[in-house]
């Protein structure tokens, strides 16, 4: 077994185990912290896949900003114990059955083909996926989507403020 394969199997095991722990932990704080671990494992995978810039964005935006927002809201609303499954008794087994079915179909369609999809070229050089190369593409060809993204973030910010604002006088 090569080092790369061992690294991949380790990271894959960490990300799958943390995702399962996120689903099963009763306390939503623990779910959030397991999700942070999962994001960090996936960010390490991005690094190994020559996506250095995206890996750093993943850590700062996902594991940093978004998860802090989640933890903030969980602490604002207070802890709530949760039970698995819904109002129907068959909901949990049905969900697990359907999830396993989806995994089986994905496995057949991805791994059951005649030959596996190849790995990429062995040596790429450090330019691929570096901040300068991604940034060059972002600010030349994808400039308009980039600007639209900034408008989208502004709209989301204004929307969040309006949604959570307490009304001063109701009805008056």
């Amino acid at each position, binding site marked *: 077994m090569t080092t*790369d*394969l061992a690294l*991949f199997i380790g990271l*894959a095991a960490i*990300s*799958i185990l943390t*995702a399962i722990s*996120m*689903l099963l932990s009763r306390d*939503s704080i623990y*779910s959030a912290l397991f*999700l942070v671990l*999962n*994001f960090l494992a*996936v960010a390490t*995978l*991005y690094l*190994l*896949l020559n*996506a250095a*810039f*995206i890996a750093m*964005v*993943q850590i700062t935006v996902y594991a940093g*900003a*978004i998860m802090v*927002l*989640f933890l903030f809201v969980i602490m*604002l*609303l207070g802890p*709530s114990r*949760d039970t*698995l499954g819904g*109002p129907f008794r068959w*909901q949990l087994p049905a969900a697990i059955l359907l*999830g396993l079915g989806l*995994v089986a179909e*994905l496995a057949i369609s991805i*791994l059951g*083909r005649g030959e596996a*999809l190849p*790995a*990429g*070229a*062995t040596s*790429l050089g450090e330019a*691929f996926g570096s901040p300068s190369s991604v940034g060059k*593409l*972002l600010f030349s060809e*994808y400039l308009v989507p980039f600007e639209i*993204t900034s408008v*989208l*973030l502004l*709209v*989301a910010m204004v*929307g*969040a403020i309006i*949604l*959570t604002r*307490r009304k001063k006088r109701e009805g008056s």
Partner: protein
Amino acid sequence: MNVPTSYIIALSGVLFSLGILGVLIRRNTIVIFMSIELMLNSANLAFIAFARMLAPAADALRGQVIVFFIIAVAAAEVAVGLALIVAIFRNKETVNIDEVNSLQG
């Protein structure tokens, strides 16, 4: 990393299925939302894996640019979604999704 792309796509598929399972079995709105983030993240992983597979080609970097945009949209979505959860909590004093059924006929 010299691993067949199929393996990475398979990992992405497993993470996506776990996200769907989370949406189906959990009742806490915040955890359901986290599962949606997990699904978005698995889609990002597939994009990065395919970008790496096609790497020497000039177009391959576009996969990473798309992931950048997905992360930005996810950030906006989280801000609005959590604001909605807080607003619902103000009115109903609950984050359990089964108790938010005012629109039920």
